[in-house]
């Protein structure tokens, strides 16, 4: 009897475990889309608004993986994602040229800003250009917090450093977090440091940071988001239909209208500006 009980307890717990596992099992794969995107689209709350609309409309299930643009493209390069929503133009062009992605379409833009302590120890306020502001930060040795995660923001930061022509890597005042935009702003706030942020995440975090905007409006600070479908010819397992449906959705007039007003009620100004169909060269003019 005792032996029976031991066996039945074991069997029952196994059955329980397996049934639970089946219970939480995934939907069929062809209905799943893996969207690899940047932390800024998630941290700003935009995707939380758009994705339920898309899912309701099409019946697809979107798995949003929010990482930096660099990692998002690395996932696309291995065929581990179906569609990308990213903001790292130079890397994107390489991605397309390498045959990893197709149908790169412009979705929206906002801009980057430099935020920092209101005391502005490096006196960057009123600088003629962003590059000059960076030069001043370097010259003053004022703490600067970098994302350091190969994200679109990090890529942009490197472009600006290059334009400034100063040494920054390995300097004592230059620190990398390796975290998303939201957390990096938090770190900069605590450390009273300068950082480069996208306006969307900054506005979304406004209530938590007291760092004011110290430089903005330069053409170099434009932040453009593109949607890219991962090339199914290269990766047959990619959900090409779903990727196309999502990309089409992002540039559709209805979605663009939502992007246009997103954030107005909460922050008083939109977080992103819709750009579908426009040419990247003509933005910000």
């Amino acid at each position, binding site marked *: 009897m*005792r*032996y029976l009980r*031991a066996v039945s307890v*074991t069997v029952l*717990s*196994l059955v*329980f*475990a397996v049934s*639970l*596992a089946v*219970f*939480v*099992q*995934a939907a069929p*794969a062809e209905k*799943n889309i*893996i969207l690899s995107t940047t*932390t800024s689209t*998630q*941290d700003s*709350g935009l995707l*939380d608004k758009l*994705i339920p609309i898309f899912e309701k409309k099409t019946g697809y*299930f979107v*798995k*949003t*993986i*929010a990482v930096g643009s660099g990692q998002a493209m690395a996932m696309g390069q*291995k*065929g*581990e994602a179906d569609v990308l929503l990213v903001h790292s133009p130079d890397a994107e062009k390489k991605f397309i040229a390498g045959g990893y992605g197709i149908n790169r379409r412009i979705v929206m833009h906002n801009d980057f800003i430099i935020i920092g302590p209101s005391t502005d120890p490096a006196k960057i306020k009123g600088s003629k250009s962003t590059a000059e502001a960076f030069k001043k930060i370097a010259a003053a040795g004022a703490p600067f917090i970098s994302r350091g995660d190969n994200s679109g923001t990090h890529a942009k930061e490197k472009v600006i450093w290059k334009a400034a022509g100063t040494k920054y890597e390995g300097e004592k005042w230059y620190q990398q977090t390796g*975290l*998303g*935009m*939201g*957390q990096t*702003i*938090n770190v900069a706030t605590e450390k009273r440091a300068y950082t480069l942020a996208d306006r969307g995440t900054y506005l*979304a*975090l406004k*209530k*938590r*940071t007291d760092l004011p905007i110290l430089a903005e409006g330069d053409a170099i600070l434009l932040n453009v988001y593109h949607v890219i479908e991962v090339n199914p010819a290269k*990766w047959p*397992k990619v959900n090409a239909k779903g990727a196309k449906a999502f990309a089409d959705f992002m540039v559709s007039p209805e979605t663009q209208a939502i992007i246009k007003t997103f954030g107005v009620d909460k922050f008083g100004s939109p977080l992103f500006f819709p750009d579908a169909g426009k040419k990247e060269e003509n933005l910000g003019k």
Partner: protein
Amino acid sequence: MDLIYEGIKQAIILIFAFDPEVMGITLLSLKVSGTATFISLFFGISIGTLVALTQFPGKKVVVSLINTGMGLPPVVVGLFVTIFLWRSGPLGFLGILYTPMAIIIAQSVIATPIVMGITLASMQQLPKKLRLQTLALGATPLQSVWVLIKEARLPLLAAVMAGFGGVISEIGASIMVGGNIKGYTRVLTTATVMETGKGNFEVAIALSIILLVMAYCINYILTHIQQRGRNF
């Protein structure tokens, strides 16, 4: 101070308003970590008992391996499970990366050595003669093992608690293999990190409090079972 007070207030509001999203996240955490604990109990106790009760060459090596496994870093497990489950990986055909199933697998891998190690230690601690005695009294080998497991009830329930505690609180593996997908693979720990990143510290504190209260309740129940009939 304001923040902590606000966080606690918000936690109470979120819990008692039965906020559907928070409830969903909490339930998923319970389901995923509970299932993983069950799976780890099966493998951990059976293999742990087997290793404890048999003598074989290289046993010390195996025992050291199990003990090392008790400290397996979740991120390392997460990384390897991710690589295996990638579309291009050896188990890619399953298509279960970024699903709750993937988190269950990763958490089982984390919890199994914990349960195994404690089982092993508690079985070895039993008097050697007990087993011989049961066998001499005519028990079949399985019956004998059952008696031993019952005898080691206290430390074994500690194994359950350690295993469950290990996985409900881990984040590295959950975020890597689950992806923190809203309403699907977002568990309490990954949601806490994300809300912190968004600057929603009140919600993050609220989620942490829910996590702590839940862990306490589960452990209270387990302790209750463990200490049943004991007055000390």
